[in-house]
């Protein structure tokens, strides 16, 4: 019922978990080593630096790791919800035959494998990168940090998310399956329609469709917003981090941000295209041209992406301001931080161009949707 192939579709979660495991492994390992040398730190400046680094490790682990894990949880739950919705008849038949909710839900634990793959890759990458990371952290430091490999912590970073996600998958699937057999059997896309409160019929059909496409799948609003947020926040922050921390740190943030942003945008738009394939097919049958169809389906997300970019810009500025003015306020060597206009001038056009290119790719995908096979899907 739930196969390895279904798990492979969760590669997006694997990548997000990989990023989370990578960051957390580096900073948790570093934090443990920091705690170990607590008594050897002497001097006022050294102590301030020590405290700031300890806080940074904690903040990075909690904010970055926490955000990434939360994103993965939302992605996982959305996937399971869609999985059950699209297979409600099949699942209903299984229940009708006598399978209990739990015996079906138990199959969903296999989704933990995508997390396992991501966590192993992330911890592995962190292990490879760790010597360089310590070298960068030790540069200009008041004390020398020795690198130790805390395998126990690494193992926990693999085991805990894997078990957590496997259990979460089972529990969530169990809750979604806990409904009468006939309801599952009769459930169709039509019965899950989000009805609009706004029934303004004066709008042209294409404008209506644009509005309805965005409104009907709210989880995608979040993913597209978050993708733009990640892009904006991480690219701009990476410029400042080169000055405030190190070039390596800057690149690390940039790469993680780009991976997250592009992957999430691509996943969300794939979902938009798939979810609207029947509408697109019907519009083409009726004679709407490919360009206007693609525009109606995709262009409604542009303002959400713009909002995400704007908020990401504000967030990174606020976060760095707090880090510099509060966490590292007593450190002498730290340069002043002000809003980086140059970073914005580079990030904004880069975002607009890449967003529009990805949109163009998906418009093309819409143009190529085979009308007949889409209509034959039931």
């Amino acid at each position, binding site marked *: 019922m739930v196969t390895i192939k279904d798990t492979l579709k969760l590669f997006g979660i694997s990548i997000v978990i990989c990023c989370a495991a990578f960051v957390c492994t580096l900073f948790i390992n570093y934090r443990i080593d920091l705690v170990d040398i607590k008594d050897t730190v002497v001097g006022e400046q050294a102590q301030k630096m020590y405290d700031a680094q300890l806080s940074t490790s904690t903040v990075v682990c909690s904010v970055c790791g926490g955000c990434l894990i939360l994103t993965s949880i939302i992605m996982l739950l959305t996937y399971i919800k869609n999985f059950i919705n699209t297979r409600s008849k099949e699942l209903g038949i299984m229940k009708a035959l006598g399978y209990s909710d739990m015996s079906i839900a138990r199959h969903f634990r296999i989704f933990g494998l995508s997390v396992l793959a991501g966590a192993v890759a992330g911890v592995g990458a962190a292990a490879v990168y760790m010597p360089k990371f310590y070298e960068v952290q030790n540069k200009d430091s008041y004390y020398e940090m020795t690198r130790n490999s805390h395998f126990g912590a690494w193992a926990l970073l693999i085991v805990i998310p894997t078990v957590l996600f496997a259990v979460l998958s089972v529990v969530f699937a169990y809750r979604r399956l806990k409904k009468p057999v006939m309801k599952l059997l009769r459930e169709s896309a039509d019965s899950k329609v989000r009805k609009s409160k706004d029934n303004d019929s004066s709008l042209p059909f294409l404008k209506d469709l644009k509005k309805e496409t965005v409104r009907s799948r709210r989880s995608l609003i979040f993913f597209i917003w978050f993708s733009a947020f990640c892009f904006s926040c991480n690219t701009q922050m990476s410029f400042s981090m080169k000055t405030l921390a190190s070039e390596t740190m800057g690149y690390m943030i940039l790469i993680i941000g780009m991976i997250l942003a592009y992957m999430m945008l691509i996943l969300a738009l794939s979902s938009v295209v798939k979810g609207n394939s029947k509408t697109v097919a019907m519009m083409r049958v009726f004679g*709407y041209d490919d360009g206007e169809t693609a525009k109606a389906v995709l262009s409604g997300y542009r303002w959400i992406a713009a909002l995400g970019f704007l908020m990401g810009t504000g967030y990174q500025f606020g976060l760095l301001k707090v880090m510099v003015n509060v966490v590292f306020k007593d450190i002498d060597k730290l340069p002043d931080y002000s809003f980086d206009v140059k970073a914005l001038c580079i990030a904004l056009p880069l975002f607009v161009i890449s967003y529009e290119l990805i949109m163009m790719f998906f418009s093309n995908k819409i143009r190529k949707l085979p009308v007949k096979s889409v209509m034959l899907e039931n």
Partner: protein
Amino acid sequence: MITVNNITKSYGSGSAANQVLKGINATINDGDFVVILGASGSGKSTFLNVISGLEKADSGSVKYGDRDITKLSDKQLTKFRKDNIGFIFQQYYLLPNMTVEKNVKMGADLAGRKDYREIIEAVGLGSKMKSYPSELSGGEQQRVSVARALAKDPKVLFLDEPTGALDEKTGRQVLDYISRLHEELGFTVIMITHNQNIADMAKTVIKMNSGVVTEVYENPVQKTAYEIGW
């Protein structure tokens, strides 16, 4: 007039190729009510898809007047469907998150029509304008689909087993609407069905079996939706 000349169509290739249409010829006059009658697997749906421009034939021609649609590009075919064709399907294919009114507007906007509410009234759904497809019965949904197709002022209306998912009472109602609107508006109707009784409503019947036309005949008297057997 629609002239179909020696149409062939296969699916698959090599030894797995399945020839669905094996050289079909037919002539359909403007304003005619045609039923393409055949059992499951006779090739009638593929024939409908080819003559409506939804699918391309492997060989042969489909001419609307002098215009051969088998020579048109995808873009030109889309424009052709926009200007000339209406569709009604067995599964309705309504947009689930849009009201009846907005579903019909999908067709009306293509023809630049503002009077689509009158068409909804004409199919007896005036009180359901703000309802969603999931709130309607099968018959009502099919009537929305009829209104949507007619709202774009088609010159030719294609119907793919329009009563296949309906019970007798609602099936007759839908056929009655179609027949009355055909008489009133004068468009060409091409309907496929496996139901011999429904063929009694047509002026011209094209019988198909195993990818070929086996018989073409005209009914001496066209029965109404309430006169045919079921």
